[in-house]
């Protein structure tokens, strides 16, 4: 029983890592479910039960986290950044960004450069939260 949980966790972690690795490309549930060796409907349900949010939301937060970094640490245009981090349209990017961060990409950019930390910590800790404890995420 426990063994099964561990194996499920590890397979789901593999799919989650794939999102963190290839966020810049189009990623679909079929591909991710295959990495996790489960059906698509099981994948979404099990991912949520294991990590506390849907795979879609996790990937969105990864993409927005990278966009936050690129906005403040590079000169790339907002359109370029939108495609760099895997969004298929500027409209979806702007809407998702605003929803998650609470302000527009250009307004966020004006805050200036961020402090550099090892990239794995930036990934884990500068991702806008899904879990409701971070007021900054909503109020900007």
């Amino acid at each position: 029983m426990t063994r099964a949980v561990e194996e499920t966790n590890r397979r789901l972690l593999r799919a989650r890592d794939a999102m963190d690795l290839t966020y810049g490309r189009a990623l679909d549930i079929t591909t991710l479910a295959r990495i996790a060796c489960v059906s698509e409907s099981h994948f979404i349900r099990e991912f949520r039960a294991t990590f506390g949010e849907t795979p879609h939301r996790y990937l969105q937060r990864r993409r927005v986290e990278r966009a936050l970094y690129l906005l403040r640490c590079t000169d790339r245009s907002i359109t370029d950044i939108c495609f760099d981090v895997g969004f298929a349209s500027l409209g979806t990017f702007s809407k998702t960004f605003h929803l998650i961060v609470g302000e527009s990409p250009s307004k966020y950019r004006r805050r200036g450069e961020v402090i550099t930390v090892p990239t794995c910590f930036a990934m884990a800790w500068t991702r806008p939260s899904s879990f409701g404890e971070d007021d900054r995420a909503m109020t900007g």
Partner: protein
Amino acid sequence: MLSSLRISQIYVLDQDQAIDFYVGTLGLEINTDQDLGFMRFLTVNVPGEPDHQILLEKPGPPAMDPATADEVRSLLTKGRTGGHLFFTTTDARKAYEDLRAKGGVEFTQEPTEQPYGIDFGLRDPFGNHIRVAQMAPAPS
């Protein structure tokens, strides 16, 4: 007051499999592998660095009760026991290619230019997170 960090610890699910990965794949060497009866005391180190050991500990009785060990194993396979290891190398791209050629390594990030150098990420078979960095020279 303190002079060095000699041993740090991560959890693994299986110590033989851990040797295959940390010694066979990553190229560390076994420092100590001793059956103490109550536990197998297993440490590895980077070749030539015997004073910086990593204890590869299997969670379970008598150190912890079976239910707690289940929780630790569950967190470990979710990648959430905090078992981060940060190694350095003189050539990150070559280290990445060498590991890729060996096969069976799960990368979490390809070699990437960072403000602090070039690094890449991977997971051990259990869920621990590893990064390998070629550090940029300190600014003079």
